[in-house]
């Protein structure tokens, strides 16, 4: 039964990376013909993109995640899509059978995941949850599972997981020394949230002793379902996260990592801006970070990234046309087209742009600038 949701990567030796991914769009006991009185009273409706988002994150892990120090070994995936929700094809093909994210399955698989992570303290762990959420403050989150609202279990939060509680449990001596957690949840409206806030009984793993080296927990909460999932059926946060991991949050080599990489700090600096850009002012979605927030490398790149560089001229119709010279590090000439704006693609790094003018123009420009992923747009002024 447990194998149904376990994707294993063959041929990797310890230390390795283990991942636990949960996406819940379907809430049969809260919405639909099987809804219970308990489930209905919270006004929860099915989501459209949580399971798909979780599958896309899984696909990134399987196809793009790169960490030579701890290659990917296993992904435990529990998905509860609604009818018609398109799960990533490559992930669906690797799952033996449907594996809905029920409380029982989550509890069992999380215990196995925790054991796997404990097998070597130099392991790395990824955890991702998407679904309805409650108590989404800056410290914690409960994510509702597939069987939220089921009756006969003794408490109303039986079908929920305390993400922050499980995170704290894994922050223990001997567990994977680097862990990164994401909770991607659709927050309830205040009058609904009010009914949840004082409830207890969600699944939480037993508290461990001690601490790992790094275990940041990113909490994303969207106030409305419309803002939660609207980018080709995936959640706003998952879209932002994948863009960040694919290079938008890449930073150059550091004492901790000799490659270009994505790390805790670069994710923090990038994610909120990506979410804001995707929402374009229509809604607010806030991202908080908590947990054991130390620097860790989440993903490494085999090659330095290229970036798009655009430099606009002010005024744009200056004549005679000013001549631009683009120098990497102020000394290595980068070929560019003589027209404006300057548009080129090159290595991420620091550049110097020299702009020469001819009479009647008298004032050219010299501009040092940084071209960091995914690109930069600068402006120079002549007169």
């Amino acid at each position, binding site marked *: 039964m447990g194998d149904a949701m376990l994707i294993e990567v063959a041929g990797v030796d310890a230390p390795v990376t283990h991942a636990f991914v949960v996406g819940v769009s379907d809430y049969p006991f809260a919405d639909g013909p099987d809804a219970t009185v308990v489930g209905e009273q919270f006004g929860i409706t099915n989501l459209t993109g949580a399971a798909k988002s979780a599958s896309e994150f899984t696909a990134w892990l399987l196809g793009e995640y790169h960490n030579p120090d701890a290659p990917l070994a296993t992904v435990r995936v529990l998905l509860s899509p609604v009818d018609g929700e398109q799960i990533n094809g490559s992930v669906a093909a690797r799952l033996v059978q449907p594996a809905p994210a029920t409380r029982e399955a989550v509890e069992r698989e999380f215990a196995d995941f925790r054991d796997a992570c404990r097998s070597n303290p130099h392991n790395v762990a990824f955890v991702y949850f998407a679904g309805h959420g409650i108590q989404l*403050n800056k410290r914690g989150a409960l994510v509702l599972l597939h069987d939220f609202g089921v009756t006969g279990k003794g408490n109303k939060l039986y079908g929920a997981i305390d993400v922050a509680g499980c995170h704290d449990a894994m922050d223990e001596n001997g567990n994977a020394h680097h862990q990164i957690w994401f909770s991607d949840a659709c927050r309830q409206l205040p009058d609904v949230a009010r009914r949840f806030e004082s409830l207890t009984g969600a699944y939480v793993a037993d508290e461990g002793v001690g601490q790992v080296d790094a275990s940041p927990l990113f909490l994303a909460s969207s106030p409305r379902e419309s803002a939660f999932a609207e980018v080709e059926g995936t959640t706003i946060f998952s879209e932002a996260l994948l863009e960040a991991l694919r290079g938008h949050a890449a*930073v150059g080599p550091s004492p901790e990592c000799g490659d270009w990489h994505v790390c805790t700090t670069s994710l923090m600096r990038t994610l909120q801006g990506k979410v804001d850009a995707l929402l374009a002012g229509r809604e607010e979605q806030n991202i908080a970070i908590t947990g054991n927030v130390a620097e860790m490398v989440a993903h490494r790149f085999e090659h330095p990234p290229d970036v798009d560089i655009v430099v606009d001229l002010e005024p744009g119709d200056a004549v005679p046309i000013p001549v631009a010279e683009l120098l990497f590090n102020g000394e290595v000439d980068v070929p560019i087209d003589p027209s404006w704006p300057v548009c080129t693609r090159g290595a991420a790094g620091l550049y110097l742009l020299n702009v020469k003018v001819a009479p009647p123009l008298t004032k050219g420009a010299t501009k040092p600038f940084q071209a960091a992923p995914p690109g930069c747009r600068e402006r120079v002024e002549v007169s």
Partner: protein
Amino acid sequence: MAGRGQLNISVDVDSPVLQDSLPLVVRDAHLAVVHEGTVGGTDIYLPEGLYSVEVTAPDGALSSSVVRVRTHETVRVRVPGNTQLPTAPPIGVTWAGGAFRGPPDVGDLFIRRSRGLGVRGGSPVNVTPVATLVEARDCSVLELSAGGWEFLPEKPATTVATAVFALGRKRVEMSLAVNPEANRADLAACRVDQVPDRDGVDRLRMSFPPGRSLCTTLAGLLRNNAASSAVNLLADATEALMSKYDDPTGAALGALTLHGLGRLNPRATWVANLARDFPWLPDGRILDAALSMKSYKSLERQAGLQSLLSATTRRPLYTDGLSLAMELLRRWPDEDSAPARQERLDGLADYVAYADWDSVNLSVDVTDRER
């Protein structure tokens, strides 16, 4: 040193803590880190070339610049102490866009601007409701301008100061980070201002006066998501607020932030002092409980639980204090206390459901309650 130049970075700020502790990262033309330290360090010797200089500014914002280092020359980078963009970049320095933005602020109250149009002098103008102060508790208030107030503590403090504001049809109750231990207004006050925002949302913001510069930095670090990369600065500032400046509300903000980053355990003594010496401040006792919960001594855990149960009968000062209290009440490893914890959770639930989680100080929409 042949083939090398010097980079000298300084900051315009009076606070010795900030002068020595603001984090600095220098990257070469390939964006590889070549130096990590603090602004107060010595000159940095670098091969000729372009370098990016990233500094956490005194307002907590990250600022970056690109400089050109030449052989046998010194490039001086001066980080402004205020929050204004320099009118012109210093020689050899280009400050990156967005590095400095807006006034330092602590709490935001999001209130949609009125979309209605009025007519003044024949031209249509946007009508924005002006915030009014409905009530201030346990503090005195001075109205500075339309939509701007300064609050001073009452002494001795017995509870967290609060104020209720009206903006349009909304009623919002804010906890106020005044400092009852200070003897000077500029070290004791906090401000709340209605400020326009670029996205069409009017906000009420709490901020600190210039005398409380370390508090401004702490709040700025939170606001700019820069706290995790400035842990040493956070710790230095929090310790100074505890020991040198007698600013318990500022220290509680720093300690909560350190706890949120998993870095408070080595500073348990501060927290114990905060909880013991300032019992009117629930956030200190909540933090003390959080550290006690992890103790292997049952007596310490029991004392922590009592501290938590006692603290959570009152309104916290900071939103993060409320968050932490809720987490502790849910998860305290003791079944016998479940009914008492449940009672406290019920009491805090109204705050939680209607809190503005983007605000550093606890800001709760009480529109329905007020009616």
